[in-house]
């Protein structure tokens, strides 16, 4: 059978399977429930393995254009889907992770009255994300981009009775909107200069900086780089399945995915690549520093996500899009698993999210804590787990490239801090004395808990090996380097672990540690939120009031027009009123006398 036809038809079948619960909820024919939706996504995952396997064994890539939307005759906007290595590898990864998360959510959200609506929201989000990844032109990508942004808003504010959840959802939408300005700028520039939105029709010559800066701004907003990052820790107000799906595996990588798709435009422009590099290095170190002193388990994992996104941005800045995509795929497995383990811990402790009030969970939740340890080891880049294949390659490429030394130092420091906060979280959660009240029953005997977590654990062990075995690399990895460079990642991880053990011993000494500048910076998240949230909006509104209201409305339209004239007249009238004596009869009588005399004079 013709392989592109096979791939496209199985992709359409997968999309139809995912859409089935949504369509049947609209027509209300069959009863849908949480378990039926979970089975649907499992079926979609198995179906999506068909085009992926076809791609792996034959290397077939295809671009399909369906229908054309013709608002104006000169700009053609077809619905065109591209099936290349990125979309073919992302599809089964995303569906596998979604299947596990939906199975977990059927236990986690079991007391929720609107659980079916929650699952349908997650399905709409999944459709938008898959549209984004298979899009071949900027229009379809923009539709998927906006779709994931809106579903993120709806899902973060799922418990909308809670004021902090509404604030966090609004924060997410606003920061994403600032990034959307960049995306729309690039789209407008492309439509006006290249007359196309298809990614293949753009010549990879020297492009001016404006569209590239627009794309980088879009990635900064969606992928929470430094400057537009505060929404990601705040998004932890949503339920844990939402955090696991959106804010670790799929939505936040959309910005990086955009840069991967448009990387031929960036490849020839060294200032744009350096911008990506330095921005990514800054955001990875900032997020890792903030994660060191967090006490909420979900916020630690959120900052860890932000740090890994910075690392992906660094990889894009090194002109290695395939390696960034590899890190996206492997990161999805272990980050989703970390979130699911934290969800299991939180529910079992009856809503406790503070790691200072957890301890000794290794004896009580053995599966969950073992998978937590596996996920942390994969995150740190332990040799031959999933994270190693992407992270170690990135560090090796960093060390052997000609780049900004500051970016290199920051990324290496962030690698060390990754190990530190992971070990701190592990020590405080799993070991040590029990610091929680003994009244909540703790067990994980439900298969809806341990099946997804162990499935994702298997994925985070073998995924790196599987993906790198089947996808040929686009560039030769660095083969020779001095031994200290080769061992740099491992050495830094070991140093980070030592630092974590030293810090935890410090807190148990007789004299409590004094707050230093470093710890204050870390605890207050760099003072970014209070500095930026108040001042920027105050300045904007103040200057708006001065220009629009005071200058234009009150001054130019009023004072220079009617009211100014009136005030001038009033000045003169007030001056001359004192000179009037009010003898109206005398004035009018002299007027009448003059008129009569002139009439009589002209009579002759």
């Amino acid at each position, binding site marked *: 059978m013709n392989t592109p036809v096979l791939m496209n038809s199985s992709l359409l079948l997968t999309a139809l399977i995912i859409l089935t619960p949504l369509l049947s909820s609209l027509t209300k024919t069959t009863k849908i429930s949480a378990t039926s939706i979970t089975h649907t996504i499992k079926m979609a995952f198995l179906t999506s393995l068909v085009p992926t396997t076809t791609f792996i064994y034959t290397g077939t890539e295809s671009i399909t254009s369906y229908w054309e939307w013709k608002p104006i005759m000169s700009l053609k906007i077809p619905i065109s889907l591209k099936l290349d290595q990125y979309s073919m590898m992302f599809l089964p990864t995303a569906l596998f992770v979604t299947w596990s998360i939906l199975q977990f959510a059927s236990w986690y959200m079991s007391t929720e009255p609107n659980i079916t609506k929650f699952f349908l929201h997650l399905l709409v989000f999944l459709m938008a994300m898959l549209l984004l990844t298979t899009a071949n032109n900027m229009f379809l990508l923009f539709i998927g981009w906006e779709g994931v942004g809106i579903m993120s808003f709806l899902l973060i504010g799922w418990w909308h009775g809670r004021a902090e959840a509404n604030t966090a959802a609004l924060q997410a939408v606003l920061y994403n909107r600032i990034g959307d300005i960049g995306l729309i700028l690039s789209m407008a520039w492309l439509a006006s200069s290249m007359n196309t939105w298809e990614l293949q029709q753009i010549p990879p010559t020297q492009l001016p900086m404006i569209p590239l800066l627009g794309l980088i701004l879009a990635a900064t907003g969606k992928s929470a780089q430094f400057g537009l990052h505060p929404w990601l820790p705040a998004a932890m107000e949503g339920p844990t399945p939402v955090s696991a799906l959106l804010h670790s595996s799929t939505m936040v990588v959309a910005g990086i995915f955009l840069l991967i798709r448009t990387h031929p435009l960036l490849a020839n422009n060294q200032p744009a690549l350096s911008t990506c590099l330095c921005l990514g290095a800054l955001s990875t170190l900032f997020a890792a520093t903030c994660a060191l002193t967090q006490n909420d388990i979900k916020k630690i994992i959120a900052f860890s996500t932000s740090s890994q996104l910075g690392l992906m941005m660094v990889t894009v800045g090194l002109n290695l899009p395939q390696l960034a995509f590899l890190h996206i795929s492997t990161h999805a497995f272990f980050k989703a698993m970390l979130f699911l383990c934290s969800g299991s811990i939180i529910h079992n402790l009856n809503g406790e999210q503070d790691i200072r009030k957890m301890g000794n969970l290794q004896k009580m939740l053995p599966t969950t804590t073992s998978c937590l340890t596996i996920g942390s080891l994969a995150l740190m880049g332990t040799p031959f787990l999933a994270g190693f294949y992407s992270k170690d390659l990135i560090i090796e490429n960093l060390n052997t490239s000609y780049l900004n030394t500051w970016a290199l130092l920051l990324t290496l420091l962030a690698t060390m801090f990754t190990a530190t906060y992971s070990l701190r979280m592990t020590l405080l959660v799993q070991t040590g004395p029990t610091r929680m009240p003994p009244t909540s029953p703790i067990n994980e005997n439900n298969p809806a808990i341990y099946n997804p977590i162990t499935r994702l654990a298997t994925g985070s062990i073998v995924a790196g090996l599987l993906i790198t075995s089947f996808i040929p690399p686009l560039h030769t990895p660095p083969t020779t380097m001095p031994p200290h460079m080769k061992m740099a990642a491992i050495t830094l991880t070991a140093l980070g672990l030592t630092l974590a053990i030293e810090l935890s011993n410090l807190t148990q000494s007789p004299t409590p540690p004094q707050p230093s500048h470093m710890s204050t910076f870390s605890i207050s998240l760099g003072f970014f939120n209070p500095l930026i949230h108040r001042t920027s909006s105050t300045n904007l509104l103040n200057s708006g009031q001065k220009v629009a209201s005071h200058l234009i409305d009150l001054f130019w339209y009023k004072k220079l027009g009617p009211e100014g004239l009136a005030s001038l007249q009033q000045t003169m009238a007030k001056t001359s009123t004192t000179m009037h004596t009010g003898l109206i009869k005398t004035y*009018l009588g002299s*007027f*009448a006398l003059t*008129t009569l005399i002139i009439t009589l004079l002209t009579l002759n």
Partner: protein
Amino acid sequence: MSPLHLPFYSTFILSALGLAFHRTHLILALLCLESMMLSMYIALSTWPVENLTSTPMLMPVLMLAFSACEAGTGLAMMVASARTHGSDLLHNLNLLQC
């Protein structure tokens, strides 16, 4: 004076005398101003017809525009004085506070 011009002159003189000698309402003065304007308008309109020149045909319309503005201003001031002093009787335009 020709019999054509007599009505114009007499209307104008009588309205001017009416403006000078009104004693009761402010609106009477405004009415007299309007009739002065009306006589001037018709006079200005018949003059180019008499002299068979077409250039001064514009002048009546110009005068009408300015007199309309003036009538509006006069009415606004009458309304303002009616608001502050209660009516437009000239006897009320004083500084008495009781």
